[in-house]
């Protein structure tokens, strides 16, 4: 198996569960870990000598109550499947990460965020209850009033508390099947951060895209995208169109990376010029707005077998300008093969190992190479100094020392996990690397 970024590869023993009795099968003290769509950039669903329990066929919709605005689904159900059903009643999940084949179990385990975490929060905010399996506890259902703390530990627990089998999720109204997108041209990252923060409060989403190729003349130029749902229906009558899901193995099929120094410049400049030449106001389908890469997967494929590196860092709003200046300086001095940067506003409370809090989320995409890894090591130091938190699920090489330094409740998570599961049956490369 391989991580989506191509950073970790490991041969594994894999089981594919489609029935309850398989989940409950006695594996003795053999470590195991559940796996969903496999879109995590870090090896959260394999590694560490664990048996991989593939839950993609555990994808049944158990209950849908449009009146109560809730849906209960099995963990292997994808975001696209949920949207397909809920959109018929003009409802949708409030938090939708960027790829439709991501499973609900994965969303819970990584406590993912969507297009507007400042307004909608993170995935934990829409989980009403969970059904999970742990050999020591059996099949358990835990709700909002859970006093055991297992629910809190499981949402953003990276699959280490047991197998998430099903969840009841809260929905919000889908006020239209089209999204009006306004594009604002920006030339400066600081200006963009201010705009994104301001626009996030009032819009369905607001995020930015920037040229991050380390060239003084063009670095930081970009656009802020602001979207609001509008009426209208999909031309085909279907909210979820057909698309070909990209797998981690499929992403790495190209034996080389397309992104050299010249091609990176050319591609990023071409994208910037294409966006600039389009009208500032446009309209797109809900599906394309929620999952912008679903039908444009070529970007990820072009990184080829060498892979990509993505780092996502949540920086307190007060420190973001200084942090962005430091990142720019570091990029210019080390000149790693960076491509693009994106900013998004967050409002929330970071607990345990959840990527959540108040501030601006800075995302940087790079081609994977030795100079990239050197850059990321230096970026870790900047993150710690700025009081930021790095996303654990987006970085397959993040060291335990950085996580310990950035997440104030690291030790609490570790000790609570140990108390809940002294045998530590659920393990992965991620949990071993982070000392969990």
């Amino acid at each position, binding site marked *: 198996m391989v991580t989506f970024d191509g950073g970790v590869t490991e041969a594994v*023993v894999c089981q*594919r569960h*489609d*029935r*309850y009795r*398989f989940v409950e099968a006695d594996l003795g003290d053999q470590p195991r870990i559940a796996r969903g769509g496999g879109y995590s950039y870090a090896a959260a669903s394999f590694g560490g000598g664990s048996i991989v329990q593939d839950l993609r*066929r555990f994808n*049944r*919709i158990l209950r849908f109550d449009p009146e109560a605005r809730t849906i209960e689904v*099995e963990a292997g159900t994808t975001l696209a499947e949920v949207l397909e059903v809920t959109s018929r009643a003009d409802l949708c999940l409030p938090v939708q990460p960027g790829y439709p084949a991501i499973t609900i179990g994965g969303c819970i385990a990584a406590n993912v965020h969507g297009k507007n975490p400042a307004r909608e929060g993170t995935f934990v905010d829409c989980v009403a209850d969970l059904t999970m399996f742990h050999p020591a506890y059996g099949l358990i259902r835990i709700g909002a009033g859970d006093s055991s703390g297992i629910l809190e530990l499981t949402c953003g627990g990276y699959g280490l508390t047991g197998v998430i089998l099903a969840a009841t999720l809260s929905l919000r109204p889908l006020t239209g099947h089209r999204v009006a997108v306004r594009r604002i041209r920006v030339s400066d990252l600081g200006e963009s951060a201010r705009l994104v923060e301001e626009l996030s409060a009032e819009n369905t989403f607001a995020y930015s895209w920037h040229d991050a190729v380390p060239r003084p003349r063009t670095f930081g130029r970009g656009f802020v995208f602001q979207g609001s749902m509008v009426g209208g229906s999909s031309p085909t009558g279907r909210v979820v169109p057909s698309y070909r899901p990209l797998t981690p193995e499929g992403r790495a099929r190209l034996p080389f990376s397309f992104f050299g120094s010249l091609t990176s410049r050319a591609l990023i400049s071409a994208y910037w010029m294409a966006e600039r030449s389009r009208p500032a106001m446009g309209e797109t389908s809900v599906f394309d707005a929620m999952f912008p890469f679903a039908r444009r997967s070529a970007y990820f494929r072009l990184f080829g077998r060498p892979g990509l590196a993505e780092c996502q860092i949540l920086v307190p709003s007060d420190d973001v300008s200084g942090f962005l200046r430091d990142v720019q300086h570091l990029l210019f001095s080390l000149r790693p093969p960076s491509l693009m940067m994106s900013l998004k506003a967050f409002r929330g409370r970071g607990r345990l190992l959840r990527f959540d809090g108040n501030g601006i989320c800075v995302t940087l995409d790079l081609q994977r190479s030795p100079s990239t890894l050197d850059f990321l090591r230096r970026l870790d130091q900047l993150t710690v100094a700025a009081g930021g938190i790095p996303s654990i699920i987006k970085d397959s090489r993040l060291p335990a020392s950085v996580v310990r330094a950035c997440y104030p409740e690291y030790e609490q998570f570790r000790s609570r996990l140990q108390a809940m599961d002294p045998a530590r049956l659920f393990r992965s490369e991620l949990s071993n690397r982070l000392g969990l």
Partner: protein
Amino acid sequence: MTYLVVGASAGVGRGLAARFAAAGHDLVLVASDERDLVAMAADLGIRHGVRVCWVAADVGAGDAYLERIALACTEMGGLDGLLLPVGMVADDDDCSFDPRRTTRLTAVNFGAIVAIVSRFLPELTARPRATVVGFGSVAATRGRQRNVAYSAAKRALESFFESLRHACVCSPVTVQLYVLGYVDSSLTIGLRTRIPMGTPEGVGDLVLGNIHRDVGTVYYPWFWRYLCLLVRHAPWWLFRRRAF
């Protein structure tokens, strides 16, 4: 129309149930674990808006379940077809011939299917048109030292469906047998083979597309017809050398 799917909770059974429900057919699902059936019935009902009821039964243990299925089918307004992808394999189904295991394997893979067809055939012949669909296996092409009882039961099933098709020539019942090669399921995960695998959904599409056609025996994936022909006619001196 209403179809009975026996062995509905996994692999090919799930693929069939999903495709038939998507085409608007009501379903009666039979499998051994009630929890899987509850989940499947809810899922198919929510996704496709069809009526689904279920019967939890171990078809390898007696035939008391037949009347429970009959009751469920009556509640659904009668049956228009039987889809019978039920089956089981055992890792130790070799030439050690454990009597209990052999009895169970033949009961699930052959006896139960004969019992179900026998119970519901009179009802089906009274419908304007109906279909009985069985599922064989390429493992039954030629006896080997592995999957001994399973292959024998599947070969018996082929013979039974041949007779059944002949017997139903002058009736409104269409009889079909699908001989399945490798199909992507929990049984084949990690299987290293150069032969392309089919999918449960692919089986579902094929069966749904053929549902009232007198197709007789169909191989899935299609190339297995020719592979099986080669294996069946391979000379013994060559066949005995192959460890498959």
